[in-house]
């Protein structure tokens, strides 16, 4: 009990400083309080329920993400395997022709040697037959030599696709001068109605491997010359470039026949070619892609419209 003085007690009796209130309708009040408490309770329960649901969903989402990651990894892996398969079958296909020809030639040569040898042993070899033999041998040797050389060239090409092992001599070079030199070197491949114009600012300096640049330029230009530009119209290739704070961007354009939509996504795949019958091996743009993305750490985008032309945008991070 709090101490109360007589004055305080009397004041409160006469109504001064009284703090209590008159009675209210308690059951109604109590009912309201209960209702609010009940609401609070159900609210808490609801929140808990929702939280549980959310947690469940979160868990499910996390699981889904995990599975997606797994799937992605699997996909990447299978994509790699598929690419490897394509590569291997491509290599096999490409190698099969020269090696097959060489093998046939060699078998024929061995047969001929055996025949000549028998004739010679029986003293039956005529001069004419011997001369024919020599002539055939030379032809066969030439065919075999040509085809083995071709196989050897192919092997070298394949080696180029895997760029990692290249001994890269990085140096600073002037982009304009370098591209200009390449186009000049390729100018004897140009037909009369074809022109290449290099519109690169003369002050752009690049640090990197000139040979990588050379590979890119030649492959893309040769692509345009061999099957991009048709014979009917004047063919024109334009090479532009600009630099910003981070990147050097090279824009390559031709006004050729363009690439079909369904092929556009495949042009960087190894052995994809629409020109196999005329000597294309489908490695050119794959090589370009590998050099740009792996060796130079850049990106390459191809835009094309049928009968209007093709555009390559190569973005290379500045190292300088």
């Amino acid at each position: 009990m709090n101490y109360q003085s007589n004055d305080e007690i009397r004041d409160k009796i006469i109504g001064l400083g009284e703090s209590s209130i008159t009675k209210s309708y308690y059951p109604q009040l109590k009912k309201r309080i209960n209702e609010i408490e009940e609401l609070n309770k159900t609210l808490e329960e609801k929140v808990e329920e929702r939280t549980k649901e959310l947690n469940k969903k979160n868990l499910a989402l996390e699981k889904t993400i995990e599975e997606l990651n797994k799937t992605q990894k699997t996909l990447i892996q299978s994509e790699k395997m598929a690419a490897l398969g394509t590569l291997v079958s491509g290599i096999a296909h490409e190698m099969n022709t020269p090696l097959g020809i060489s093998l046939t030639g060699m078998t024929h040569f061995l047969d001929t040697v055996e025949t000549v040898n028998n004739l010679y042993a029986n003293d039956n070899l005529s001069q004419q037959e011997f001369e024919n033999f020599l002539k055939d041998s030379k032809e066969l040797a030439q065919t075999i030599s040509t085809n083995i050389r071709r196989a050897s060239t192919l092997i070298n090409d394949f080696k180029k696709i895997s760029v990692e092992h290249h001994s890269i001599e990085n140096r600073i070079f002037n982009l304009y001068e370098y591209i200009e030199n390449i186009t000049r070197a390729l100018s004897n491949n140009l037909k009369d109605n074809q022109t290449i114009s290099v519109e690169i600012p003369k002050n752009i300096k690049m640090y990197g491997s000139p040979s990588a640049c050379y590979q890119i330029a030649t492959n893309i230009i040769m692509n345009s010359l061999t099957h991009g530009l048709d014979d009917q119209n004047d063919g024109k290739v334009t090479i532009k470039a600009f630099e910003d704070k981070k990147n050097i961007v090279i824009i390559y354009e031709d006004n050729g026949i363009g690439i079909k939509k369904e092929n556009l996504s495949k042009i960087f795949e190894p052995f994809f070619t629409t020109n196999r019958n005329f000597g294309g091996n489908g490695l050119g743009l794959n090589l370009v892609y590998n050099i740009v993305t792996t060796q130079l750490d850049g990106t390459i985008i191809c835009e094309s419209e049928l009968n209007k032309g093709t555009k390559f945008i190569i973005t290379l991070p500045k190292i300088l």
Partner: protein
Amino acid sequence: MNTKNYTLSSLRKFVAPEYIYGFGSRNLVSRFAHNLSLSKILLVTDSGVIKTGWVDEIIQQLLSEGFAVTVFDNISPNPRDFEVMEGVRAFNNNQCDSIVAIGGGSAMDCAKGIGICVANDQHILEFEGVDQVNIPAPPLICLPTTAGTSADVSQFCIITDTTRHLKIAIVSKTTIPDVALIDPEMTMTMPLNLTVETGLDALTHAIEAYVSNASSPMTDLNAIEAIKLIYKYMPKVYENPENIEYRHQMMLASLYSGLAFSNASLGAVHSMAHSMGGLKDLPHGLCNSILLDKVIDFNFNASSHKFKNIAEAFGLKTGALTSQYIKTDLGKFMKDFKASLNIDKRFGEFGLKENEIEQLSNNAIKDACTATNPKKISVDDIKRIYELSI
């Protein structure tokens, strides 16, 4: 009018519950229970009241109206603190939302105590003093069966502290019932001794309220009317307890005195009676009757004009008499009045020893009623009065 002479201290509050007075008002209990949205009622009463039959009648009425009723009747006269707490448990265990009290001061004070404990979730002894209850109690409907206590209209709740052996006074607006159904018919069943004791309790309420230092014109009006009625009808009820008109007048007197003392508070008679009742477990009205004339004698000079009015209310001729004569006459009247009702007793008869007076006085001086005694009273004064009463 110069308002400068009227200070804050001259302000007066008057608070009273809604009450229905009259024969048969008890029959309105279920209507008020509906009005107050009650549903599960704790019916507080005591075994003595149950024997009168009123409780059964009212329970039947409530049950037939669809209320759930839990009866709590484990109450002794001068309700104990632990009995209140037991009632609190009964209230909570039965998920009650309201209280109906049927009985005298014991049942009604216990019901009030249960209510404030339930609402505030506190022990009953924590509320001792004036205006110490924060949260109003659940609805309370009171049906008094005695004419004297007037707990049914008052803001007083008196509970026995069984550890300290004294009665504590809890004075708070929150203990005022929501409705009092004051039905004089319910006092017909009172035994004669209880009739006299409660009648003298009502008289003490009226006199102490009338001379209280917190009295007001409103309380004076009620107090003096109560005194007149008691003077006139107490002896008649004593002679003729079966007379319904006399019972009605005494009930009315009790109501008037209740309205008066609830708002003007009381004085040293009650301080000392609370202390005494707590120690010896004596009927409250009896304690009051023993102390009343002694305290009047002590207080007389502090409020002689008011005591003169009281003397006149008792039919004494005051005319040109000096205060001293009136005082003597009033003292003599009080003794004769008690004697005529066969209640002129002394505490010695109930085992009070001289060596207990010290403790009694120390408790009495701290009682809330001491504050409104018309004359400043000391522990020694109280001791002397106890000594005179032994």
